[in-house]
């Protein structure tokens, strides 16, 4: 632990270590961004040119490509619909589980938590069969529904934890005035929970955007998402480094835009509320 009174050599050691670690963190991000701005010939050159004329050719190929810009549209649509469904279904359910304290509701809450902890691989085979049976393989709704298996439990669990801590007095007086549960939810709970709802929305968007395994197994062409396309191109024999780097760089944009909303709540989200 460094304090103001620590000797200088200790401080220097800590700063040196932190400097190295920060370089380790930034290197891959800088590397793919510089790679995305090069031509294939430039990207193959080692040691790399540090000063070069940036080329936006890779980005142009993505945006007017057909297959690739479709992956971005799919990813955005799937993530946005997931945010809506997770909130629309999750808010009432979380509220019910927060206020209805009974053995049954405790069991339901616990089951929802354990779903989040279960391996995705455990349900992927039956999920694939279910989707085949329903004719939803390689469709927008197939991927959207499957992503809900991750996002809906997450939304319910986080919102439930938040609702439990809201003061109950307002709701009780509203009930005495004859308000029903939907009215209470809409007029009292929602306005009080806006920051948490925004955080959950951002988290759901990010998890859906980043999800790979389900989308990879359930799509082949028309419903592919960005991570699926990145791996598909990364797996081909002829490496098109600038194109892949541009794809990877572009896939970082939403997360970097949302980071302000996510950062404060991400620990809570990823540990399912065990760390506040």
């Amino acid at each position, binding site marked *: 632990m460094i304090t103001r009174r620590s000797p200088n050599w200790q401080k220097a050691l800590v700063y040196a270590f932190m400097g190295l670690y920060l370089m*380790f963190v930034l290197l891959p991000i800088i590397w793919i961004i510089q790679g995305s701005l090069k031509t294939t010939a430039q990207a193959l050159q080692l040691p790399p040119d540090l000063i070069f004329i940036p080329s936006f050719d890779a980005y142009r190929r993505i945006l007017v490509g057909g297959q690739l810009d479709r992956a971005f549209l799919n990813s955005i649509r799937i993530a946005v619909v997931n945010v809506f469904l997770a909130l629309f*279904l999750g808010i009432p359910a979380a509220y019910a589980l927060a206020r209805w304290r009974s053995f049954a509701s405790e069991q339901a809450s616990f089951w929802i938590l354990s779903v989040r902890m279960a391996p995705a691989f455990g349900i992927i085979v039956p999920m694939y069969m279910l989707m085949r049976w329903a004719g939803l393989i390689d469709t927008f709704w197939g991927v959207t529904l499957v992503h809900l298996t991750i996002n809906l439990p997450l939304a319910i669990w986080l919102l439930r934890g938040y609702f439990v801590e809201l003061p109950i007095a307002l709701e009780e007086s509203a009930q005495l005035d004859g308000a029903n549960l939907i009215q209470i939810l809409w007029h009292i709970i929602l306005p009080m929970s806006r920051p948490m709802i925004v955080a959950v929305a951002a988290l759901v968007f990010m998890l859906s955007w980043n999800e790979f395994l389900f989308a990879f*197994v359930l799509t082949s062409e028309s419903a592919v998402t960005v991570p699926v396309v990145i791996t598909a191109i990364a797996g081909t024999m002829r490496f098109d480094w600038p194109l*892949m780097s541009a794809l990877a760089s572009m896939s970082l944009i939403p997360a970097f835009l949302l980071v302000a909303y996510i*950062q404060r709540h991400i620990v809570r989200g990823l540990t399912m509320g065990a760390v506040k």
Partner: protein
Amino acid sequence: MKRYFPLLSPALLILIVIVAFPTVYVFYVSTQQWLLSVPIREFVGLGNYIDLLTGPDFRSAFRVTIIYVVASTLLTGTAGFVLAFLMSGNLRGRNVMRTIVVLPLIVPPVVAGFAWKFLLSREVGLIGGWFLPSLGLEASMLADPNLAMVSILIADLWSKTPLMFLIFLAGLQAIPEDLYEMATMDGTRLGSLLRFIVIPLLRPTIALAVVLRLIDAINTFDLIYVMTSGGPGTATQTLPLLGWKIGFNYFDFGQASALAVIMLILVVVPSTIIIGRFTRLAD
């Protein structure tokens, strides 16, 4: 109370269809001979389990998984703890450092894997193609069976340390500052500070971090798939990659389901016990 039921039932209904049904169904499929290419299905009891457990693939994948999970937990846990410990001290530029350290958390694992594959590539990578050879190390990181696992662990360290860091930071911030002050005034050495104050107080945090990392590591598919697809050979083929191969390359749903059940048990039993204790702590 019945009036809460209408609020709960739509979500519950969807979760039953997309989560509970597959979870139960996987047990049924695991007892069937069920290949996509063969229309005849029959009950084989534990046959799929026996085939799987006696075959060479499972044993190798199990070994690789243990190596990966243990190494990953140790590496990311240690790095996360050290970073959190250093940064809870009096450092200038702490907020900027914190933002950068957390950055990989929002990078999709597929992108993290790709970026490291690019960096470590023998042909075009800054590290694998230029830095290491200039030190006289000519081996190809991703093509050598042992080094491929090392490559994955490097990317893993990069991608998974931030969550460990944030969990430990939250735990360290909950320790009253007076304790440190007293300890440093008494001239307590760093070793005893860690051993007698920090680590005992942090025990629940450490357990939580370890459990989360274990669960996540056993399930890791994306990072490994994009970097090596389990290769070279089967050197980095963990259980999820083997399961994917059985299920979606050979389309042997019966055996893939048997593997899924084994993984469910490997993950759910210990984590349910420990997480059950933690949620009570957190409430």
